């Protein structure tokens, strides 16, 4: 129900007194209302819920989170090395 899908604003315009936009989700383009994200412009990514953009996606935050996740992999590989030095690992189950 609270399904929100990230999409890219390809064209913003006025209709019936509301700020609307064409938004691209992969290969699909749908109309959504931009009234709640007044700062969002063409090229920005927004989360769309029942025809309304509810949040502008923060690219820097997204990149930061993703970097942390990727680094975690490197860290756990280091952890594996350390454990290997201490002796053979048991089953991970």
């Amino acid at each position, binding site marked *: 129900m609270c399904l929100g899908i990230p999409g890219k604003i390809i064209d913003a315009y006025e209709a019936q007194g509301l700020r609307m936009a064409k938004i691209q989700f992969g290969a699909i383009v749908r109309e959504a*209302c931009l009234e709640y994200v007044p700062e969002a412009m063409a090229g920005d990514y927004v989360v769309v819920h029942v025809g309304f953009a509810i949040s502008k996606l923060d690219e820097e935050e997204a990149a930061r989170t993703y970097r942390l996740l990727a680094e975690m992999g490197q860290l756990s590989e280091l952890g594996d090395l350390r454990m290997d030095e201490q002796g053979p690992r048991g089953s991970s189950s």
Partner: protein
Amino acid sequence: MKYVDEYRSAQLALNITQEIRRIQTRPWVIMEVCGGQTHSIVKHGLDYLLPETIELVHGPGCPVCVTSLEMIDKAHAIARRPDVIFTSFGDMLRVPGSEADLFTLKSQGADVRIVYSPLDCLKIAKANPEKKVVFFAVGFETTAPANAMSVWQARRGGIKNFSILVSHVLVPPAIAAILQSPQNRVQGFLGPGHVCAIMGYREYEAISARYRVPIVISGFEPLDILEGTLMTVRQLQAGSAEVENQYARAVEREGNRVAQNLVSEVFEICDRKWRGVGAIPKSGYRLRYEFRDHDAERLFEVEEIDTKEPAICISGQILKGIKKPHDCPAFGKICTPQTPLGATMVSAEGACAAYYAYGRHLETGEIRHAV
């Protein structure tokens, strides 16, 4: 798709689960609040990736599921009227009331239409001035701005034949109700990402402090949920109880102020009855008096309806994280998505329906795969 595909990386998922295994020293019970998260967990088998000692229990965050039987019956009474075009999100149509569901009413001749957005209803109202167009406004805080805008636009555009039947529910009072229960076993929460995109997470800070429980606002993709779980486990292991934001790409602490403003102009907080759970004080929205001309409950006299749920159904305990679908003798046997007995089977985001959709009613024993 950007912001989707990269959050489904199997390698990164593995990294997170390994980190959870590395830091965890005792069992923990964590509840994901939102039905969208439940669906993602079951669809991707995320609970099977976690150590067996991390139990995910499924929360009350499916508005379709928790819409009370009385409200469904009211909707049906309105939809049956020949002067009404009844509009709804698609997932409400299969929800059974005391006698039927909206699909059945439609097949019997009622004018029931599925809409993608509440704004679509305004177009229908303009095109059908001789009819009364009613929208079934269900949802959590995430959906409230959209539903508020439909009423706001109707008033601004003088669209008098449009009204909404409001059954809005709010997340924080439900979390508090779960934590107050003497049977509660939830030790940490994955908070509802899209609800918080609208409302921010200040309300959750008060809950976290009062009940000494970690809450990590989380997204909906597999990596979001696994990272949210890791952040919750870290807090539990360290004995801390704070609100953290895993879903920072979409959620700010203050939320979406523009949306909050319109919601509070159109709606006010009221008590609300939740299907399977019962009445929770101050847990819903209703239309403000100024918008009474668009309030379907006022416009259509619907008599008080007395309803009764099947005794065998344990959906109330499932919604509170006390039990899980397999604990129910009816699950997958007499209770299926085609013949649901209660709240958690009526919508795809309910825990029982999600378990059923991904074949878990066929499982005979534990099939967890150690990673």
